């Protein structure tokens, strides 16, 4: 017993020590919200609007109780939310897989065909050429039912095409022709037999984990910043390009760990990640013909190429082979976006010549071919080839000395002597990461995102200076931001992005989706399909981007459908937000729900504009008629007596005031 007490005492004192340590690590914050004219309550609401995805019911009070400074300190030093992470990994298994594992399990269609065929051929060879035995083993139980989910005609046609190519590759007539519908199912199931999963599943996991985190994570600032920095270092899943399978790992490994850390590390992690290497074509950037490289020997890639193209019954067509083939010639896309978008900015003081020289320095920066589902033997050989030629293999990054332009370069006025190797690219990243132009470029983007669309130049200068002084410490820059008066003075000046709007609506109602598929579709209709901005610029961070076109209309409709419990996978009861107490009149409804949904704000305008409509007897009549009618379209999405309240809440969520943050 005394031992236990002693142990408890130790634990307590240790716990007490650790309790004080974050405060020691985080210097005292000087938050000038009062100077900017905000009450403490407004300041708390501002933080939840800007540095989080909106307030949940009662969250402003909780934050005030905890203390604004403590809340910020916690957000700036996020601790892993183990429970949420475990839950997400259970729902979205790709989150727990390495880049290689994801690449092997969720190959894009062409990759699936090529390597699926190669795997089968390997098996056929092992079975002494007995094709039928292998097909029986692999496909014996595949007759009959459709295993695949709904497919559109284009997908069906594509699968049919792949199946008939597979026939050719395997030189069998086992698979029926494209006229036969059941073949689509057989081909899909053959893929599953070989360990492949449909790409759409991976894309769903990617989008769903983002929405779930935004709604549920306690580390809200980390989520908001992950969204910001992903958009800064944008890659895209548009039209499921070859880089799409790697976007999930990209956000997880290259972006999220660094958003409150070191900018240079994030820059390096993006530069070396397969998602970026493929998206901006560096994977195909090679020393030009006749240029000195570091090593003449053949790489694992060449081996792969040779193996794939060696026999006349090659499993792949010339065009498909070309996808994997490396041809001499520099591609400038990564180098250009590195300067223009990721670091210096468009007027950052570099020339076309600097781009060309930097592009030469990044030749040989490639993706490890083992992210593809190679047959076992080939996988091993490719790895050995890499080791033999001392290629740098790190995670899925692969530096190919045989493709690297080893001659001298001059970049941004600095001479890089011949033979710099992979370090040369790293030195360029060092140089641009902490360049004053980069500081100014990033400071402007941060100020636009977190203050307003036309931020004061003094604020931008302060942020840039903080970035340079701290050598790219992004946490220090965020502290400078919250210590600026401009940050607090910009209350409700930003328009919520569609993601911010959808997630903050869900949070305001105290809900979390069972599955966020429908929310992802709404985001597309509001103009922000997740992970699908095609251009490397990322989404423009301006209010007009989000109010254009059909976007606002879809926001209004979303507010109504959410409050009326019409969103699949997201049950909503507007009464529960008010602990089940029902307001007695439209005036009471507005007086109750406006502060609940829009805490720490002036609601007078919204109330003034809405009240006449809600008090108009025609409104009540129409709603009553509608609610009482027998033609409820979808089985009682909302109880008739709540119809009026649900619409009132829908109007608040869809209101101009709720679009602001």
């Amino acid at each position, binding site marked *: 017993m005394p031992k236990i007490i002693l142990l408890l005492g130790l634990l307590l004192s240790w716990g007490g020590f650790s309790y004080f340590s974050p405060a020691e690590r985080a210097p005292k914050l000087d938050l000038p919200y009062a100077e900017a004219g905000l009450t403490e309550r407004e300041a708390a609401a501002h933080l939840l609007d800007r540095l989080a995805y909106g307030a949940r019911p009662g969250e402003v009070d909780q934050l005030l109780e905890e203390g604004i400074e403590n809340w910020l300190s916690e957000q700036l030093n996020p601790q892993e939310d183990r429970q949420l992470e475990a839950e997400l990994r259970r729902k979205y298994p790709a989150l727990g897989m390495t880049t290689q594992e994801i690449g092997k399990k969720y190959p894009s269609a062409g990759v699936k065909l090529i390597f699926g065929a190669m795997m089968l051929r390997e098996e056929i060879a092992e079975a002494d050429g007995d094709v039928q035995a292998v097909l029986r083993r692999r496909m014996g139980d595949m007759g009959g039912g459709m295993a695949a989910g709904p497919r559109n005609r284009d997908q069906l046609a594509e699968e049919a095409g792949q199946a008939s190519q597979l026939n050719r590759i395997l030189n069998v007539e086992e698979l029926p022709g*494209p006229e036969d519908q059941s073949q689509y199912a057989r081909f899909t199931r053959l893929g599953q037999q070989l360990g492949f999963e449909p790409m759409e599943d991976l894309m769903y996991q990617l989008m769903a984990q983002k929405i779930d985190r935004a709604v549920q994570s306690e580390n809200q600032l980390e989520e908001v910043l992950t969204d910001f920095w992903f958009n800064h270092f944008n890659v895209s899943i*548009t039209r499921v390009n070859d880089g799409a399978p790697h976007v999930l790992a990209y956000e997880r490994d290259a972006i999220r760990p660094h958003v409150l850390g070191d900018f240079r590390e994030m820059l390096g992690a993006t530069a070396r990640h397969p998602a970026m290497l493929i998206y901006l074509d560096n994977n195909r950037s090679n020393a030009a013909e006749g240029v000195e490289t570091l090593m003449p020997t053949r790489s694992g890639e060449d081996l792969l190429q040779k193996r794939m193209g060696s026999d006349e019954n090659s499993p792949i*067509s010339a065009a498909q082979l070309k996808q994997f083939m490396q041809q001499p010639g520099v591609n400038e896309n990564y180098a250009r976006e590195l300067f*223009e978008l990721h670091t210096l900015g468009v007027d950052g003081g570099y020339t076309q010549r600097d781009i060309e020289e930097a592009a030469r320095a990044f030749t040989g920066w490639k993706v490890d071919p083992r992210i593809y589902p190679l047959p076992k033997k080939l996988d091993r050989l490719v790895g050995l080839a890499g080791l033999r030629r001392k290629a740098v293999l790190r995670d899925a990054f692969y530096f190919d000395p045989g493709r690297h332009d080893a001659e001298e370069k001059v970049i941004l006025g600095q001479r890089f002597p011949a033979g710099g190797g992979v370090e040369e690219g790293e030195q360029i990243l060092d140089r641009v990461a902490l360049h004053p132009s980069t500081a100014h470029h990033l400071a402007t983007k941060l100020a636009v995102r977190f203050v307003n669309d036309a931020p004061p130049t003094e604020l931008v200068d302060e942020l840039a200076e903080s970035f340079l002084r701290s050598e790219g410490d992004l946490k220090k820059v965020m502290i400078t931001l919250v210590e600026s008066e401009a940050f607090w003075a910009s209350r409700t000046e930003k328009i919520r992005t569609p993601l911010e709007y959808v997630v903050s609506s869900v949070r305001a109602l105290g809900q979390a989706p069972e599955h966020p598929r429908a929310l992802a579709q709404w985001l597309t209709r509001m103009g922000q399909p997740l992970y699908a901005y095609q251009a490397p610029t990322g989404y423009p961070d301006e209010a*007009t981007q989000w109010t254009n076109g059909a976007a606002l209309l*879809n926001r209004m409709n979303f507010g109504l459908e959410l409050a009326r419990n019409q969103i699949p996978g997201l049950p909503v009861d507007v009464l529960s937000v008010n602990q089940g107490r029902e307001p007695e009149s439209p005036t009471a409804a507005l007086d109750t729900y406006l502060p609940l949904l829009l805490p720490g704000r002036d609601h007078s305008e919204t109330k003034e504009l809405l009240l006449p409509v809600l008090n108009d007897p025609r409104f009540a009549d*129409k709603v009553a008629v509608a609610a009482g009618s027998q033609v409820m379209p979808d089985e009682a999405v909302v109880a008739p007596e709540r119809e009026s309240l649900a619409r009132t809440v829908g109007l608040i969520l869809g209101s*101009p*005031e709720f679009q602001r943050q």
Partner: protein
Amino acid sequence: MQRRAFIKNSGIALFAATLGGVPTFVRAAARDYRQPNGTRPKVLVTIFQRGAMDGLAAVQPLNDPHLKELRPGLVMDAARTGNDKVRALDDRFGLHPSLAPLLPFYEDGRLAIVHGVGSPNQSRSHFDAQDYMEAGTPGRKSTPDGWLNRVAGQLDGSGTPFRAVSLTPALPRSLYGTSYAISVERLEDLRLAAGLPAGMGGNAASEGFEALYRQTSADLLRSSGSVTLDATQMLAEAELDNYQPARGVRYPNSALGRSLRQIAQLIKAGVGLEIAFAESGGWDTHSRQGGAFGGFTQRANDLSACISNFWRDIAAHQDEVCLLTMTEFGRTVKQNGSFGTDHGRGSCLFVLGNSVRGGKIYGDVPALKVANLEDGRDLPVTTDFRSVFSGVAAQHLGVDGGEDLFPGWSGTDLKLM
């Protein structure tokens, strides 16, 4: 500085200045939007054929012995009769039988074909080539806007909210940019309180939003909100639910068919459409592309049926409309081992309009011997796609075209009109 540039370019700013919060605009213009000079605006309808259409199958050289040698399983015989007969366009080229519904337009002289068209950038990746074509800057990915958005920025006057519409779930790269553009898959979705049928008191909810957005003190939300509400009213008055295409018109029940049907609705409703975008997928015909069930045959059947029905549907408005097809690249001259074709370079495109100098094949297709082929395998690109796009935009819509439309390009417009 940035801000001023944005206001100048922004469609919203123009709306705000001209009609923000002025609901009377709707009543005046709902069914028959006119330009300041009193005419209906011209309309450019674009169709992106994603996946890379085999231009040599669509419009086949007739007397080229190399073609027969390189694609014996795909080449079609002009001399044959029946459904397989390729339709002679002139003494050099024939139209694929599945595209036969387009033949009357060619014979009328309102359909032009440009052959050997493509990009100077040699990428044979769908993603890259589509990106370059839609941005209008081959080889350069950082271009922030799309070429059709830049066209919208060059149009006269403020236009209506329906000036640039894409019938796709998300805005295509072609329409990225600062000018106002709508993307919508189904026009019904552009209805306020769409989840509440009108009989369900949906109007009551819309009145709430009308009150909120038309009178909010937040400028941007008031102006864009008003434009949005105007747009929904315009569509409501256009009575979309009861749309009946012209007599005898039957759109295929395909993605493209639904898109063109709705584009026809917008044109006839007179809501001020000037730029429309639609997609046709499935052109990546790596195997069994020919024959009755072949991928190319099916896509070509759909494309030609969609376009010919669309053109008949808008009979009264044909003078206003020009239709332009495009695809990211062509396909190998030689057939592959599974009776398909792989990613190539030059393809062909169609331009349809009453003022088009049609009945003619523009561009240059050399004899298809290996020495003449790009990289020894592909139809060479002899016409830069930008000279067609710029020419069509300039000649049909009256915009400047040229380098403002296609940054870094100094070529000349192809004269098709």
